[in-house]
């Protein structure tokens, strides 16, 4: 493994701010994310965490502030300066985005195998056999029965759809994955399975990730670092176990105290 301290950060946000007219989306968010680091952004509804995720993943434009990303060639670019073609290419190869609702991140009427193979075909893979083999490999990795790879996700359960979404994103070996409440809406046992899968994949593939969640248990399980948000502001940030075991701010203490004991 390369020297950790000398490594350039992968994603840097500086003073990231977004206003919706007179309503604050989020304000002055600054952090640096390195390779292999997972950061959870937690907060309740209206905290600004979803706005932040959309800003980072270039889905909406910032009112102020910047986002820099270190591309595969080692050059760090200001994302606002990228052309549309570059942006789409980045979103399709080096990044992943896992939506809370898997139907938003999948083509529901196209087979599971094609869903996973699409990114490959988009970057020029032209051998059906190889595309299919790679897709079935990934389906296996996310614990989807390969026998169902030719069925459309309309026939899949919620947990399966979410796992398919993950496979679809990871097939291009992205370095950074954005996740928006990845376990939201799933049954508890399904959640546990999915979290475990994510944990394993993040470790195996040395992914960096920004995970938005309202569930502190998810944050504890998946992330190294955590950012607590409320009303668009960053309340507290630091190591996950630090912030959750030794919360400093009043709001963080409230959040931590509000978790129902198992």
């Amino acid at each position, binding site marked *: *493994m390369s020297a*950790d*301290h000398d490594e350039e950060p992968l994603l840097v946000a500086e003073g990231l701010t977004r206003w919706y007219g007179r309503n604050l989306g989020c304000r002055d968010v600054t952090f640096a994310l*390195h390779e292999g*680091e997972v950061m959870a952004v937690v907060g309740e509804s209206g905290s600004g965490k979803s706005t932040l995720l959309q800003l980072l993943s270039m889905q909406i434009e910032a009112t102020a502030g910047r986002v820099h990303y270190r591309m595969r060639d080692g050059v760090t670019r200001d994302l606002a300066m990228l052309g549309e073609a570059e942006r789409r290419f980045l979103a399709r190869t080096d990044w992943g985005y896992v939506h809370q609702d898997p139907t938003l991140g999948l083509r529901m009427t196209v087979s599971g195998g094609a869903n996973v193979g699409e990114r490959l075909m988009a970057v020029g893979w032209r051998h059906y056999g190889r595309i299919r083999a790679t897709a079935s490999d990934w389906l296996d990795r996310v614990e989807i029965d390969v026998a169902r790879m030719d069925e459309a996700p309309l026939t899949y359960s919620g947990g399966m759809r979410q796992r398919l979404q993950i496979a679809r994103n990871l097939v291009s070996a992205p370095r950074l994955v954005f996740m928006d409440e990845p376990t939201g809406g799933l049954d508890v046992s399904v959640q*546990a*399975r999915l*979290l*475990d899968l994510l*944990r394993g994949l993040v*470790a195996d593939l040395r992914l960096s990730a920004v995970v938005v969640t309202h569930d502190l248990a998810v944050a504890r*399980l998946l992330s*190294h*670092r955590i950012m607590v948000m409320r009303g668009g502001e960053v309340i507290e940030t*630091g*190591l996950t*176990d*630090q912030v959750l*075991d*030794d919360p*400093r*701010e*009043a709001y963080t*203490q*409230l959040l931590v*105290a509000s978790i129902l004991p198992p």
Partner: protein
Amino acid sequence: MSIALELADVAKSFVMHLQGGVRLSVVSGVTFSVRPGECIVLSGPSGAGKSSVLKMIFGSYRCERGRILVAQRESYVDVARATPRQILALRRRTIGYVSQFLRAVPRVSAIDVVAEPLVLAGATREAAAKRAAEMLRRLNVPAPLWGLPPATFSGGEQQRVNIARGFLPDLPILLLDEPTASLDPENCAVVTGLVAEKKKRGSAIVAIVHDPQVRDRIADVVIDVTQFAAAA
């Protein structure tokens, strides 16, 4: 480096905002150092702040004053002032922590729990699993259990998995919070043997141990934490 770990005038208190902002002082003026191969045992009654000291060294707790210097090759890193990234790196390479209770992750098997720190530090899964198996065998965890998630194990079995995980990597500093609390005499002896080995290999150890016999066997220095009780 002659000193592996040094605490200088470390203080910790909690501000309980939900209880009207009351301030709970835990420790103050904590000062001691540990040499490679040395084992320091923190003693004192419950609530004296022993676990808090360990957690501050590991970076789980923040400290509001003082320095916690960890030897890192040719220089020292102050945990109290380190960035999250630096602390993550320290945890991977320098400081290990064996907590009092195993935090069991739902579906991960015992052998994977034990192997995980090695894998995160760069070892292959196969190599890590092999060493994990050896360690589990040594701690008398029967092989049929290795493939099962530890959540259903007995307290003693869970703790032995926890110990295996903590003792497996070769780390210069090891923090132990009641490592033998739920163990029978036979496994107690295994653990004290492991501690002795670590000391021989040059690891610096800070431990919380209640059992006087175990304490006598592993401690080079005993520090009574009540001397660091915070002024009211």
